[in-house]
């Protein structure tokens, strides 16, 4: 079964006809050539495919493309404007917060969305005060909130540093 859908991907409108079984991740990578989000597990267990879907971070391998006609998708590629990188991307380079780079686009999208969640006062499991208006992003909070994104090169210490620097600025 196939259906025509339109997605807005990194600011560009893309229309395609897709198999109802196609995940958002495969639609992006195999149909639209948007390979910034990566396929690490296809089961929502690693976070490499993280994109922002209508402003929220999601694992795009667990989302069916056909169910998201009209959605706005932002990948790590869309966070940069040409050579002008997003502050989180610059910080990842400065702190050497990656090695092989495969989980990195997902980490970066996740970090950008997480910073917004914290700004909006969302608590995490390690937050002392669940009703606080403002979340202080210390290393423990950042590590907890970034634990949906696995990194097998294990750049975690540097990932936390990279995000902490952006959160403080």
């Amino acid at each position: 079964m196939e259906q025509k859908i339109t997605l807005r991907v990194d600011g560009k409108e893309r229309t395609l006809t897709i198999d109802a079984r196609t995940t958002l991740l495969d639609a992006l990578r195999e149909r639209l050539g948007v390979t910034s989000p990566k396929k690490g597990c296809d089961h929502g267990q690693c976070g490499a495919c993280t994109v922002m879907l209508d402003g929220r971070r999601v694992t795009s391998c667990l989302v069916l493309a056909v169910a998201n006609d009209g959605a706005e998708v932002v990948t790590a590629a869309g966070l940069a404007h040409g050579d002008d990188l997003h502050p989180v991307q610059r910080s990842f380079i400065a702190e050497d917060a990656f090695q092989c780079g495969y989980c990195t686009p997902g980490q970066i999208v996740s970090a950008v969305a997480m910073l917004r969640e914290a700004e909006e006062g969302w608590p995490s499991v390690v937050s002392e005060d669940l009703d606080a208006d403002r979340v202080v992003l210390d290393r423990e909070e950042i590590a907890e909130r970034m634990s949906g994104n696995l990194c097998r090169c294990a750049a975690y210490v540097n990932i936390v540093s990279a995000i902490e620097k952006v959160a403080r600025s």
Partner: protein
Amino acid sequence: MTSVNETNEPSRRAVLKAGVGGLGAAMLPSMAEPAHAAGPATAPSAVGGGAAGGIGAALKRVEGPLKVRGAATYAFEWPVENPAYLYPLLSTIASGRITAVDAGDALAEPGVIGVLTHMNAPRLAWAEEPEVAVLQSDKVAYHGQIVGAVIADSIETARYAAGLVKLEYATEPVDVDLRADRDDLRKPEHAQGFGQLPGDLMNGSPADTTVGDFAAGMASAVHRVDATYTTPVQHHNPMEPHAAVATWTDDEITLYCGSQGVSTPQELLTRAFGLQPGRLRLISPYVGGAFGSKDFSALWGTVALMGAQLVPGRPVKLAFTRQQMFTLVGHRPASIQRVQLGADAAGKLVAISHDAVQETAKAKQYAEQTVQASRSMYAAPGRRTSTRIALLDVPVPTIMRGPGEATGMFALEPAMDELAVKLGMDPIELRLRNEPETHPETGQPFSSRHLAKCFEEGARRFGWKHRDKKPRARRKDGWLIGTGVAAATYPSPRLPGSTASARLDKNGRYTVRIAAADIGTGTWTTLAQIAAEALGVPLDRVTLQIGDSAYPRASSGGFSSGMNSWGTTIYAAARALHTALDENGGSVPPEGLQVTVGMPDDPKLKQYEFGSYGAQFAEVRVHEDTGEVRVPRLLGVFDVGRVINPVTARSQLLGGMTWGLSMTLHEETAIDHRYGNFVNNDLGGYHFAANADVGSIEVHMLGERDSHINPMGSKGAGEIGIIGTAAAIANAAYDATGIRVRDLPLTLDKLLR
């Protein structure tokens, strides 16, 4: 079928070229020049070290701007027109034969192009190597072996149709039981170089070694330890699944293939398919992690090429699923290790033995040098090591980060801690008292060995002297707190078989080519730094080209051998280019100057023992009620020789130490003894460290140059970080609780008493 509205969209290829600035050419094979080593405009320049960007400069990764946008091209992402997709079908028995194949329903599915099984797959010219050859017979040697593949127009169709292929089997009894008391354990043979060479163990060393009289030493000892340690099956799980895109035409056979090296798999696949040398081109500039699992096994390349042969001219894309990776790309073999130590009253070792029993596959012997560190770490007059293997109905194990020593040092180093407790001696003092002056087995000098300095520096930074002498002495808020220490060592080998070219153009630009790999280690940056230093020019005048079998042959990246092997070769090429320039009167002809040279022989390689060293410190908290283990602090001090790039070297060591934490607390693949299958075969079931598992990790490098090993003075940094970490954590857990856990992983059930 399906269609994409591209009316207002430039082609993928144009998008890729336009979107990535100066490094965009990296994504196209005809223009693969990613390492203009000065980097694109957005890359920060040197933040310290040599201003020219040579060895020692703390440079950011040159490919960083690509990776943070997701624009570095991994194997599955190479833009190809109208690809077909291949989905492998895996055996559901561990031992037996396929008796019937019914692909009718799969072939009837719209969009299915073909179904491959052993009945119709191309016959390979080299069908005996189980890590390369597939679909060559009806025999099933392990659960999760490739027994078929569906090729279709889409991923979804290929995967669905794979479920429609019906296979019948004649099963044989399954044996996956690793025990030290099996009566069929055997001495490994011909395991060197993955079975290519005659040495007993994978590193070419004998299975058994003896020096002096171990039994007499043990009999004379005042203090003795005799303990058995076990480690489970572990899986590499690089984030990028093993993937390949293959195109087979009369003119070219191209394989984009994530790999730890391009030359070795190119040669293996050339042999398997009986091709003319050079006909197959293998391209792999970026690899999404490997850790050993993308080194020798080339199954994904084999299957992709078989698919491409079926649809000549049409690219075939294949990526193993996470679940399939658990059986198709190797694992770290489980081990049972007995260590015996005997010491005199002053803590001097008089006897050391280390006996390892490991699991391997009936399909192929893999036997790693688990006992290797016990041969070199401490002085003792009476000593012996042995290695025995059990041949089981399991997938073929392979090298995994720190192969050999990573598991072996979980036996020797906790045993040393147990001995220190018996002696009532500080565990650092015990180790320093047993430092050997020369290699305890060979008698050869160490090219450099600064282990004592690592301990001294680490103890100072960690605050070791404040440690409580008794276990279970510190608690806070319900957590028992302990500290532990362990030594680390890993050889720094130089692998044979590398060649490099160096070229100088009329415009003064240098180009260095070598078919090396960057698996996340930083090769794109560090090899360019070495080239700049060797050529004696600033980094921005050097273009490095790696990751393509069209370049001069190189050994694969593994065993912490990359910089040593490739860097030495580049030095030789640089020297030859200088000579050529001198012979040409110092001027560059219009066509430029180019030399290609192999890695030179070096008599020193036979005169010294080469290795990296480290001291690992850990603070562990164990919850008194739940047994939960946390590792709030790790600190490592490492002797890795002269540091090529402190940024990427630190990341290597940091990653290695985090791997050590992960193997200690989390990693274990369970096998079902009834059916021979790995049970927890995904990232939900196989746990490795996530961000919140990791606390503070401090990495320090001594930076002492090794004057014998190579022109750079550098030793290996890729493996040493994982060595000894598990022991330091387990020793700290003992200090916290008084409970000695000798079986990895260190899960809470083992700490509840």
